[in-house]
């Protein structure tokens, strides 16, 4: 019986990912980030706009995450909650605050690293490899382990392979990073879109909306 109850608990925790909306929105954010890096490359090092874009990366990242979170909740309220119900997960306030600080520090570190590599070492290609591995291991595979969903393992593998492939592609600085985020974004959106399509087909709106 204890195993059955654990199985119930795991299924409940997986519910957040059942509609693919998180991946869909996350994918869109990745594509925008890819566009950001590609634009920087296009504008060149001596452009004032490029310099402004570089220092505003942290704002872009934090603003993007806030917008993404709002879009996810709005779409879930429109599509998911009326079909299969609403769930709010336990949030440890202290842990959430620590997590937000870590995310801000990570965003700042990514910004600083990007600026350092571009300006000083011209070793931009290694950024793509590191990013690919980081996204694959930290963001996706950890998610895959907690959710137990195969598609996250696949996305993690795609991220690592893409990052390594683009790092040796010989593409100009910035375009390889832009292409990484753009292609990963498309991968997320494809995965999320297919998941959402299947979810909507399997879960029509209940006739009786009254509870």
């Amino acid at each position, binding site marked *: 019986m204890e195993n059955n109850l654990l199985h119930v608990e795991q299924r409940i*925790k997986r519910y957040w990912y059942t509609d693919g909306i998180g991946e869909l929105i996350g994918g869109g954010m990745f594509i925008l980030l890819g566009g950001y890096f590609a634009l920087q490359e296009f504008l060149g090092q001596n452009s004032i706009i490029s310099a402004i874009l570089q220092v505003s990366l942290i704002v872009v990242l934090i603003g993007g995450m806030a917008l993404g979170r709002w879009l996810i909740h709005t779409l879930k309220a429109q599509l998911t909650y009326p079909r299969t*119900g609403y769930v709010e997960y*336990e949030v440890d306030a202290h842990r959430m605050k620590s997590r937000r600080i870590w995310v801000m520090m990570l965003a700042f570190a990514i910004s600083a690293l990007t600026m350092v590599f571009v300006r000083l070492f011209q070793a931009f290609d290694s950024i793509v490899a590191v990013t690919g591995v980081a996204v694959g291991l930290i963001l996706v595979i950890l998610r895959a382990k907690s959710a137990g969903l195969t598609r996250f393992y696949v996305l993690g593998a795609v991220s690592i392979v893409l990052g390594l492939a683009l790092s040796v592609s010989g593409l100009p600085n910035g375009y390889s990073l832009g292409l990484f985020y753009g292609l990963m974004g498309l991968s997320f959106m494809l995965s999320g879109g297919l998941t959402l399509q299947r979810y909507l087909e399997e879960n029509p709106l209940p006739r009786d909306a009254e509870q």
Partner: protein
Amino acid sequence: MAEKLRALTEVDRLVHEPARLLLLTILNTVASADFLFLQRETGLTKGNLSAHLSRLEAAGYVEIEKTFKGKLPLTVCKLTTKGKKALTGYRQQLQDFIQKTSEA
């Protein structure tokens, strides 16, 4: 041995009922869940689910609130501290019972 078996009769019968045990387990995993989600997860009819939730609410194990998420009306259920303790206590009782009877 009879005394060990008799320990099973001392479990909380409100929690022991399978549908209510499932409800409490689901609510223990989340901060809150609405009526539609609970109905789909348990497979209970609306009437049956309402009856079980009413009993749990009357015992103080569950809080039920009618609210809105944007424009969407929701009946949201939440496990109380008393309910959490009851569920934890029940699971411990069962584990002790299984351990004692397997030692016999």
